[in-house]
C-alpha cells in the first residue's frame, strides 16, 4: 500500500513537466520554437526526454512499477477474497460490549422466538447470517441460562469492487497502449473542391504508432465539395466563428458508391479503419502568375496559414516554371483589409469581406533543385532577390480580388483570381478504444462499489434467564465509511419488535 502511494505521487509529479515544456507529440512547432529560444537548455532537456515526457523511460518506469505493484497487490487479494467470500461469518466474540457499537435490552418473547427474529431481521437487511449456536442450556452460579447467538456479515461486494477497480485500471492501460502502438494520426490540408485519398504520400504530417503498418491504411477517398463558415458579425465577441462545416463526398473503397457527409467540429466522419475530423480552416487565394515571356507559369489556389483570430494569413507562392528567372512571392492574405500607420496592413475581420493579398515578389533561384526538403510555407531566400520600387524600397503588391499587377522590369504579372477556403482534416485511428472505454467504465463501477458498499459485521446473543429474555447486539464497521451507529440503531428497533422492552445498557462509540 505504501509503495503504491509513493508511486502514485511520483506519477503525478512526473506528469507535471509535460504540461510545462512543449511536447513534440502535441505541438511539434512549439517544440521547434522552444529549441530556437533556449539553445543551452535544449541538449539537457533532450537528454532527459522532456520534449516527450509521456514516452520517456522514466515516466514509463514509474507506471510500469505501478502496474507491477498493482498486480502484486491484487493477485494475493483475489485469492484471499475468493476464500473469504465462501467463509461463514465469524462467531460472536465473547464480550460483545467491547465492540464499537453495543446494545443490550430485554424482550418479552421466548428466547427461541427472539433468536429466530434476529435471524430474519439480519436476512432482511441483506446480511449473510449464520446461526452460530442454537439455544443451549448452561448452568452457572446465577442459575439456569438458555443461550444462543447469530453472526451476520454484509458488504462482501466492497472488496469485489475494489479488485474490479484495480483490474480495470490495467485494462485501461492495455487499451491505451494498443492505441499508441497500432494507431496513427495524420493531418492534411484540403482546399475546397479538391480531394484526398488515404495514402501516406497525401499527408502533410503523419505520426504512426511504432507497430503501425502504412499498408493497413484503409483505401478510402473523399472530396470537399463545399466549405462554409459563419462568423459573429457584431456584439462584443464579433469575429468569433459560430459554425464551420464542410460538405464532403466519399467512397470507402474505390468502386463503392459515393456517399455524402457534413463534416463539422464535434461531428466527425467515422470510417472503417479511421475517422476524419475537421480541426481547422483557412483561406487559399487563387492566383495566376505569368512570367516574363507572358506564359502562364502557375495557376491555382495557394494555401495561406492563419496567424491570429483575424485570419490574417501568411503564405508563399513558388513559381519554379517562370522564365527567364524563377519567381517567388511571400506575404499576407487579409480577409478584411485595414491599414494604420502603426501596424501597416492588417485584417479587421476574419470573414472575407474585403480580401486583399499583400505580398512581396522575389526572383532568382527557389532552391528546389538541390534535392533538400523544403517547406511549402517558406521561401528559401538564399538565392532570391526582392524586387525594388523606384525609391529603392521593397516592391509591395497590394491586390484586391480580380486585380492584376505587373512586376517591375517586365518580369511578369500576377492576378488575384478568386478565393477558396481550405479545411484542415485530422485523420486518425486508435485501436483499443473500446477496451480503454470499457476498462474505465468498469473501473468506475468498481470504485463506486469500493466506496459506497459498507462491510459490517453484527452479532446478536440471546439469553434467557429466570423467564426473561436478554438480547445483546454488537456491531463492527469493517471500513472507514461511518454510519454504523445508525445501522445498529435500526437493527435494535427491529429486534425489539412489537413488544418493546426497556434498554438496560447501551453504548454508542465512535463509528
Amino acid at each position, binding site marked *: 500500500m505504501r509503495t503504491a502511494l509513493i508511486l502514485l*505521487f511520483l506519477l503525478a509529479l512526473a506528469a507535471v513537466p509535460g504540461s510545462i515544456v512543449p511536447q513534440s507529440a*502535441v505541438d511539434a512547432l512549439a517544440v521547434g520554437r522552444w529549441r530556437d529560444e533556449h539553445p543551452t537548455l535544449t541538449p539537457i532537456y533532450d537528454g532527459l526526454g522532456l520534449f516527450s515526457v509521456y514516452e520517456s523511460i522514466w515516466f514509463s518506469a514509474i507506471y510500469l512499477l505501478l502496474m507491477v505493484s498493482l498486480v502484486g497487490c491484487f493477485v494475493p487479494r483475489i485469492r484471499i477474497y475468493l476464500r473469504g467470500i465462501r467463509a461463514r461469518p465469524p462467531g460472536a466474540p465473547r464480550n460483545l460490549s467491547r465492540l464499537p457499537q453495543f446494545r443490550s435490552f430485554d424482550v418479552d418473547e421466548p428466547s427461541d422466538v427472539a433468536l429466530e427474529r434476529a435471524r430474519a431481521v439480519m436476512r432482511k437487511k441483506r446480511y449473510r447470517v449464520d446461526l452460530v449456536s442454537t439455544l443451549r442450556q448452561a448452568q452457572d452460579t446465577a442459575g439456569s441460562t438458555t443461550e444462543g447467538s447469530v453472526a451476520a456479515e454484509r458488504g462482501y461486494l466492497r472488496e469485489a469492487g475494489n479488485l474490479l477497480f484495480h483490474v480495470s485500471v490495467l485494462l485501461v492501460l492495455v487499451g491505451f497502449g494498443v492505441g499508441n502502438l497500432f494507431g496513427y494520426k495524420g493531418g492534411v490540408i484540403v482546399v475546397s473542391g479538391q480531394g484526398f485519398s488515404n495514402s501516406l504520400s497525401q499527408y502533410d504530417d503523419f505520426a504512426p504508432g511504432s507497430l503501425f503498418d502504412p499498408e493497413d491504411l484503409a483505401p478510402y477517398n473523399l472530396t470537399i465539395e463545399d466549405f462554409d463558415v459563419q462568423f459573429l458579425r457584431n456584439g462584443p*465577441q464579433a469575429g*468569433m466563428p459560430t459554425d464551420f462545416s464542410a460538405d464532403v463526398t466519399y467512397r470507402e473503397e474505390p468502386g463503392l458508391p459515393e456517399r455524402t457527409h457534413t463534416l463539422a467540429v464535434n461531428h466527425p466522419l467515422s470510417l472503417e479503419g479511421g475517422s476524419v*475530423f475537421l480541426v481547422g480552416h483557412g483561406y487559399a487565394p487563387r492566383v495566376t502568375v505569368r512570367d516574363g515571356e507572358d506564359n502562364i507559369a502557375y495557376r491555382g489556389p495557394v494555401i495561406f*496559414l492563419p496567424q491570429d483570430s483575424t485570419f490574417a494569413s501568411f503564405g508563399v507562392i513558388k513559381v519554379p516554371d517562370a522564365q527567364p528567372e524563377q519567381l517567388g512571392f511571400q506575404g499576407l492574405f487579409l480577409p478584411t483589409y485595414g491599414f494604420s500607420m502603426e501596424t501597416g496592413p492588417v485584417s479587421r475581420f476574419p470573414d472575407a469581406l474585403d480580401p486583399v493579398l499583400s505580398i512581396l515578389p522575389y526572383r532568382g533561384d527557389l532552391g528546389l533543385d538541390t534535392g533538400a526538403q523544403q517547406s511549402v510555407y517558406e521561401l528559401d531566400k538564399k538565392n532570391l532577390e526582392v524586387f525594388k520600387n523606384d525609391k529603392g524600397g521593397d516592391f509591395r503588391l497590394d491586390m484586391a480580388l480580380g486585380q492584376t499587377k505587373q512586376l517591375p522590369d517586365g518580369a511578369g504579372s500576377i492576378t488575384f483570381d478568386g478565393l477558396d477556403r481550405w479545411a*484542415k482534416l485530422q485523420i486518425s485511428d486508435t485501436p483499443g478504444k473500446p477496451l480503454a472505454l470499457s476498462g474505465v*467504465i468498469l473501473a468506475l463501477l468498481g470504485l463506486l462499489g469500493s466506496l459506497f458498499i459498507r462491510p459490517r459485521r453484527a452479532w446478536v446473543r440471546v439469553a434467557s434467564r429466570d423467564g426473561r429474555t436478554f438480547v445483546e447486539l454488537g456491531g463492527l464497521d469493517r471500513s472507514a465509511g461511518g454510519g454504523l451507529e445508525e445501522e445498529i440503531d435500526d437493527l435494535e428497533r427491529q429486534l425489539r419488535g412489537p413488544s418493546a422492552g426497556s434498554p438496560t445498557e447501551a453504548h454508542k462509540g465512535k463509528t
Partner: protein
Amino acid sequence: MTAAEFAAFSNNAIAFASGIYALAFVSHLVEWVLGRNVATAAPQMVVVGAPPPSGGQASLAAGRGDDLRIETSGRIGVALTVVAGLLHLAALVTRGLAADPVRVPWGNMYEFSIAGTLGVTAFYLALLRRHHLRWLGPVVTGFNVVVLMLAVLILYVEAGPLVPALDSYWLVIHVIAAIIATGAFTVGGMASLLFLVKQRAESRGEPGGTGYVARLPESSVLDRVAFRMHAFGFPIWTFAALIAGPIWAEYAWGRYWGWDPKEVWAFITWVVYAAYLHARATAGWRGRAAATIALVGLATLLFNFVGINFFFGDTSQHSYALSVITAHSGLG
C-alpha cells in the same frame, strides 16, 4: 426579456448574491464572536468565522441570552446563504438565457467560476442538516465572496454564443460533472483543512482554544465529513475527466487522450485524490497525512482551473475557456 436584459439581470444578480454572501459571512462571524464570549472587539482572524451551537459543547460560560443570540446569528447566516444561493442560481440561469441561441451557462471561465461556487453553496446547503455542517458556514460564504469578486473583476466577459468546439451536448455532461466534483472537492477540502486545525488544537490539549476551533465538531467527525465529500466527488471526477472528457475529445479533436495541459492536470488531480483514498486506508497515513494529500488535490484542481488557462493559455486546446479563440486550435 431580451438577451441584453437577461445579461444585465445576471450581472446584477451576481453582485447582489455576492453582497448577501458577505452579509451571511458577517452573520456567521457574529455567531463566532458571541460564542467566543468576547462580545467587544472584532476578531483579527478573518477567514475562519463562526461556531455551531449544534456542534457539541454549546457556549462555555455565556448566559442564556448569549446562547439565543448565537443561535439567531447562525440561523440568519444560513437564511442569508439560502437567499444568496437562489440569486446566484438566477444569475446563472439568466446568463444562459442571455446568449443567442440560448445555451448552458458554462462556456468560459467567468461562467465556470459562477457555476462552481454555486455548486459549493448547493453542496453545503444540501448536507447542512444531515451532517450538521453549520460550522462550514463562514468558510463557504467567505470563499464564495472572494471567488465571485475575482470572477467579476478578472474573468468577466460579455455573454455571447459558444465557439463551435464547445457546441456539443457533451458540454452539458462533461462540464456539469466537473462542476459537481469541484463543488464536492472544495467542500471536502474545507473540511480537511478544519480537520488539521482542530486536530492540532486537540493534540495541544486546548479544549477551549479560540472560539471557532473549540466549537468545531471533534476531529474524527471532521475527518469523516471530509472523506464523504471526497468519496462522493471522486467517482464523479473520474467520470468527468476520464470518461466524458475523453469521449468528447475523441469527437471534437480526434483523439481521446492527447496530454493537453488541461488533461495532464486533470489526471494529476485524479492521481492525487486516488492517493488520498488510498492513504485513508493505509496505516500511518490516516488523519493528518491523508488530509494534507486532500489539500494538495484541491490545489491541483484549482491550479488546473485557473493556472492552466493563464499560464498555458495558448498551448492548451482547452484555452477557449479563457476568452474568445480562433477555431483553428488544431493547426500545427
